[in-house]
């Protein structure tokens, strides 16, 4: 198990390195000069050169990259536009010259929003997706199954940016059934927190639930054919209990893995949802950074998103191993 863990971590680190290198290389080729953005439109060429030096943009890209990676591990000191040294403790994801703060701090500020969206959306996905998938599998071929499948297919086909706006305008601004989407910290006003995020949760959850419903249903149906499910029933276990105790457990593997990927992706920022509902999470930060050519923030958010995916995929693998002793001891 220890060896498995070490190998898994090494793999994750390698993936993250590859991603940061790609992101670094790609955004280095981006259209406009980050130094110019930091320096402002009325910047003289001499000042621009100074800014470039203090930002380290005059260094070869490889050494910029190694500095960056070094910063993540040990932290480093970054020079601001005017040469002021700014300490950036590990894990240093760079310093944003547009936001005037370390990228990690900018992310930390917005992470609660993204986490809140992710948590709620995930709950909706679980209830709506996995729940309806279970129900559809247990009542396969009947009206419930067809109804749920149709509902989920609708979810799979509708777009967040269409549904999000339509519902927002219909349910919030025309009728006032829902509170306007906004974020208040859970710690201060939990009720407001939930109310303000309810619509984004439902929309994001509904749109993503379809995949889970479908997967749950097909996994359940496939697992039902296994002998051990029949054995359980032959023991005298009721149908529902059999499916919850045996079939569901057998069906869980791929679901958990997909969920791991989903959680990672959600924590990396729900770009479109955050844009549609005007919530300032990590996704909005990333999109703004791309638009503002804020290179350190772009690379930082890309890395963060990748980090979450890698971590949660690994967590999912561990959960699968825990669920399935055959994997655990393999």
């Amino acid at each position, binding site marked *: 198990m220890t060896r498995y863990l070490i190998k898994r971590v090494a793999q994750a680190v390698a993936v993250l390195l590859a991603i940061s290198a790609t992101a670094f290389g790609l955004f280095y080729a981006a259209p406009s000069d980050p130094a110019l953005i930091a320096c402002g439109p009325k910047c003289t060429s001499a000042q621009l050169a100074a800014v470039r030096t203090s930002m380290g943009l005059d260094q070869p890209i490889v050494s910029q990259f190694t500095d960056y990676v070094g910063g993540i591990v040990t932290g480093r000191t970054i020079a601001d536009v005017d040469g002021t040294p700014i300490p950036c403790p590990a894990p240093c994801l760079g310093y944003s010259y547009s936001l005037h703060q370390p990228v990690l701090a900018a992310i930390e500020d917005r992470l609660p929003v993204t986490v809140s969206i992710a948590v709620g959306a995930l709950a909706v996905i679980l209830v709506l997706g996995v729940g309806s998938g279970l129900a559809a599998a247990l009542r396969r071929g009947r009206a419930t199954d067809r109804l749920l499948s149709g509902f989920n297919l609708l979810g799979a086909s509708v777009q967040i940016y269409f549904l999000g706006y339509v519902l927002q305008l219909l349910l919030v601004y025309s009728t006032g059934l829902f509170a306007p989407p906004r974020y208040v910290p859970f710690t201060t006003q939990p009720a407001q927190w939930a109310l303000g995020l309810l619509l984004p949760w439902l929309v994001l959850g509904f749109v993503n639930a379809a995949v889970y419903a479908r997967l749950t249903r097909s996994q359940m149906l496939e697992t039902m054919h296994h*002998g*051990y499910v029949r*054995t*359980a*029933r032959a023991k*005298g276990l009721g149908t529902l209990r059999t499916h919850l105790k045996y079939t569901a457990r*057998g069906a869980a593997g791929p679901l958990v893995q997909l969920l791991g990927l989903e959680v990672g992706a959600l924590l990396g920022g729900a770009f479109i949802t955050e844009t549609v509902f005007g919530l300032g999470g990590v996704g909005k930060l990333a999109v703004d950074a791309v638009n503002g050519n804020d290179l350190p923030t772009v690379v930082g958010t890309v890395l963060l998103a990748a980090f979450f995916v890698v971590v949660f995929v690994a967590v999912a693998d561990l959960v699968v191993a825990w669920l*399935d002793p055959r994997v655990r001891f*393999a």
Partner: protein
Amino acid sequence: MSARPALRVRDLTVTFGTARGPVPAVRGVSFDVAPGEVLGLVGESGSGKSTIGLASLGLHDPARTRVEGSIQLGDAGTELVDAPESALKRIRGSRVAMVFQDALDALSPYHTIGAQIAEAYRIHHPKTGRKEALERAAAMLERVGIAAARASDHPHHLSGGMRQRAVIAMALINHPDVLIADEPTTALDARVQHQVLDLIRELQSETGTAMLLITHDVGVVAATCHRTLVLRDGEALEEGPTKRLLTSPTHPYTRALIGAAPTLNTPPGTRLPTVDDPKPKPRTKARLRTAPDRDRGVLAEVRDLRVDYPGRRRARPHPAVKGVSLHVARGETLGLVGESGSGKSTIARVLAGLRRPTSGEVRFDGRDISGAATSTRLRRELSRYVQLVFQDPYASLNPRHTVEQIVTTPLRIHTDLDAARRRKRAAELLEQVGLSASHLSRHPHEFSGGQRQRIGIARALAVQPRLIIADEPVSALDVSVQAQVLNLLMDLREELDLSLLFISHDLAVVRHFCDRIAVLKAGELVEVGLRDTVFDAPSTPYTKELLAAVL
């Protein structure tokens, strides 16, 4: 024996609803099983025998299955057909229990065997504590011959025999009135099969449980059942005390079924009876060649062959074959016998050039072919002379290809015949294996298992090889089909003067078909010799044990 049977089945008809309309699986079958009695349900695949077993527990998908007739249980005559699910739930596992064929599939991989057995107890004894149930489960495991300490193991940690024992323990923990055992030993090696059957019999007679034993194997029936019911296409053909049924069957099908499987008493090399041809004429020229023509020379041989399978991750490599020396002489059929894991298939793959030996010599016609697995060119040359017939007639045929494509593939590779000629040759080959040229454009799934195996044989014969390696070519087939294929192979062997390496776990088949026998155990050669020598006077205890286990 009490007045009323433990299980009373009357006019049972089971119909499956399929896309193409209702398909009857069981038609009007009636039988009784008395307490303490063992009734054998014998039939080939598709005969409906397993369906009867499942129907007795109401385990069919009610949405797609219609069950008619009556299944009554015990003195009270509790009706199971159309009983509500709540009633069935109480009966399942407590009054009627079931042992399934594939124990690995039948046991949940996610729970320990102890927990699974304990659960079976607790369902019907809800007041029992978890701990007590586990203790009972452990005791039951001890009873079926598994150390109680292993109760906390997961199924995949147990051997096949132990798993089957665990399943039996689970079925019997509530002392059911009726035990339904569906092919309980089919997946097991002969020796283990013997042990498990003994265990079932012992427990069953101990508790006086009525048992319904479902099997395709006449040998199992003969060894276990008081009475036997023969099923074919969902209908009961013949019923009677086992002994009578085996010695003087009235129905021709029963006769064919009994005769189709060679036993240790069948004259070797004789034509086997089949359903279509229950009383075959003796062969024109009986093959009773017990002494090989040594002078014809060695065709293929391995010397001091070692094959290691690489270990997972950094584990040590696992040896599959540990220094075996063997040869196949020209015109000879060598039988390779052993239990699963004995290395017999590995040797076949090495000889076919599909696997690289770790060490040792591999020669075909005097030429070193040990590198064939890694050299496409060498393997191609070798395959001109050595062809394989596989065990699974479905898996070994590409499902997306037509029969013509399948049979002509070797011709494309090894000859420069044009398409028309290849087609003609393919038609000839099909005729040769008892199919017709009209089958050329069909896909494998349109054929039965036996027909598919014929296609496989036709493919192997296409380039007129000198050696055919047949790896369990009949073990996936029903007995009557097995007989047909064996008959075909014997005919072809005569006609084409083939050399064969015949691999099987079934000693009776090997005895019937082969000239010389090599016995393998765990990668080592235990015994090799002429057929009659090995069977009549086995020199090692292992061979003796194997022979003793043959039912």
